[in-house]
């Protein structure tokens, strides 16, 4: 509708495949009317921002339904199916319910921090969408250090979770936030190292540049670098607090973690932010490893941003799949996994990638010769590494940690009934 409106105003025909010419035409329009430079920036910036934010907002609503239906299907349930066709109106009903609910705040909570935490948790996820390349020339902010910006913005989430947990003045919230911080600090390292492998190989930190590299050599990074993909996927699903690693809000252990005390739309923000972050991370994976808006010959027929959204949802399905099938880690298992498995693998991969880049630059062999060789070598090494780490480093099965970390001795008084059984000659439970 907006496109046809612009067509009427400007007299240009706007191709849906390349939305970037839209902002160019607007710039020309303002420039011709004698508008100042800053107005051009403000208008094109606002247009891009509104487009992206409405996409993200829509995604946050729809993905509630997607997630519940898909997980329901995987767990032999129906999922929401009452409101509207296929239950599609369920998220709308949920949103209305959340907005109507009274926002309760504990009397002992520290007010301002308590209110700021959900906002600060949501905002970085929306920032991240600014640097994503939605198509050729369709990046809102083409940052030279885009990958680093992704890491920096997503690292702010830890502080928000901490603020939420601390200001609630609730022990479960505090436990939850401490778990999150321990987890985020651990998983930041493999994430950075996995992304460093991609950045080192492509030689650019600009997300659009990484897509252009994949287009130029006609290869997806996931073929060249399967190990970083594996590491990044696992580590980031821990950072997202999704089920294989949702120890931060493990409902069966610590009630709800850091958002125990939140209700109404403040809780809604936390909930929406997790869905937004999941989509944004899927977008990052499809940019860095799956070619972004480029897809061999297909991007000549289909608009790049449609391919991109398709890839995003493909990766998102993988996240939902892991959520629907895998059981939850214990906290010590999760941290050990980061330090003993993910980090060494990432370091190994980094050395390998550095050597490959050096060979490529120094030998002068053509990319057509080297890249297929790298694909074979890297895939073989990825299989060997993962299998090797699985077999050699696999811990002996432990029902409980070998020694208790924080409280070496706790005297647990026997229950009266047990004590009576013990006194009467001992039952099946002797100790």
């Amino acid at each position: 509708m907006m496109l046809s409106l612009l067509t009427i105003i400007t007299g240009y025909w706007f191709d849906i495949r390349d939305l970037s010419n839209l902002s160019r035409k607007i710039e020309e329009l303002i420039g011709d009317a004698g508008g100042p430079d800053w107005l051009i920036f403000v208008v094109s910036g606002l247009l891009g921002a509104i487009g992206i934010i409405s996409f993200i907002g829509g995604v946050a609503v729809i993905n509630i339904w997607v997630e519940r239906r898909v997980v329901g299907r995987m767990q032999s349930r129906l999922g929401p199916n009452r409101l509207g066709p296929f239950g599609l109106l369920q998220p709308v009903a949920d949103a209305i319910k959340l907005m109507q609910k009274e926002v309760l705040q504990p009397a002992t909570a520290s007010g301002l921090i308590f209110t700021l935490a959900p906002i600060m948790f949501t905002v970085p996820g929306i920032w991240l969408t600014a640097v994503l390349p939605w198509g050729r020339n369709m990046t809102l902010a083409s940052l030279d250090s885009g990958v680093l910006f992704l890491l920096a913005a997503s690292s702010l989430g830890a502080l928000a979770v901490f603020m939420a947990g601390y200001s609630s003045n609730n022990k479960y919230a505090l436990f939850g936030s401490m778990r999150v911080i321990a987890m985020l600090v651990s998983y930041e390292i493999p994430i950075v190292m996995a992304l460093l492998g991609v950045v080192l190989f492509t030689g650019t930190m600009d997300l659009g540049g990484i897509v252009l590299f994949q287009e130029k050599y006609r290869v997806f990074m996931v073929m060249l670098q399967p190990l970083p993909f594996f590491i990044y996927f696992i580590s980031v699903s821990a950072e997202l607090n999704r089920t294989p690693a949702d120890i931060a809000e493990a409902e069966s252990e610590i009630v709800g973690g850091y958002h125990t005390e939140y209700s109404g739309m403040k809780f809604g923000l936390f909930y929406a932010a997790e869905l937004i972050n999941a989509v944004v991370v899927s977008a990052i994976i499809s940019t860095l490893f799956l070619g972004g808006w480029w897809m061999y010959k297909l991007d000549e027929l289909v608009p790049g941003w449609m391919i991109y959204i398709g890839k995003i949802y493909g990766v998102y399905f993988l996240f939902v799949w892991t959520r629907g099938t895998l059981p939850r880690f214990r906290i010590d298992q999760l941290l050990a996994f980061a330090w003993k498995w993910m980090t060494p693998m990432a370091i190994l991969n980094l050395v390998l990638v550095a050597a490959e880049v050096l060979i490529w630059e120094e030998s002068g062999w053509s990319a057509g010769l080297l890249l297929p060789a790298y694909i074979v070598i890297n895939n073989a090494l990825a299989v060997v590494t993962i299998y090797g780490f699985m077999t050699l480093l696999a811990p002996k099965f432990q029902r409980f940690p070998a020694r208790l970390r924080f409280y070496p001795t706790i005297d647990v008084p026997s229950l009266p009934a047990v004590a009576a059984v013990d006194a009467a000659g001992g039952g099946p439970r002797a100790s």
Partner: protein
Amino acid sequence: MRPAAGPAHHDGEQSLIDDTGIVVAFYILAATTVVCALMVAFVRELIQAVLFLALTFVGVAGIYIVLSADFVAVVQVLIYAGAVAVLMTFAVMLTPAADRRNSETPFWGPALILSGLVLAVIVFVAYDTTWHLDKGRGAFPATAASLGEAFLKPYVVPFEVASVLLMTAMIGAIVLTKEDEGDADA
């Protein structure tokens, strides 16, 4: 943020640093940074102090962006606001609740003198240095690549020394906090 990341519409002669938007942004960011830094010292509760410190780091990152050093700005947010502030909050949370307040201390006099001396040294150095003002710089030149070149070519020795220092600190921390295996089993 000021939309300086877009296509350059400036024709090079007018320096970006005298732009109205840049000047206004600089003063807003400087005021935010200074106020937050003061609040770190004045606020009673340690957690709030740490959060203000994180805000100070973000303000400094904003000033880097104004100076069109985007790489340094992003690293500032990543390392200081993302990692250092989180580690500090972790440290604060591991202390007993009673110690989480900035209580009265007899050391305020010496601390004031010491911080005054540090401030004097920084001000002196800032005035003493002849600042090389590169007025011809565009909006956002690629800073990451030139930083990398500088670190790994002329300044490789200090860079490596710094990393060895960090390594030593890390090993030291592990040695200090490692509990005795024998004690734990007993």
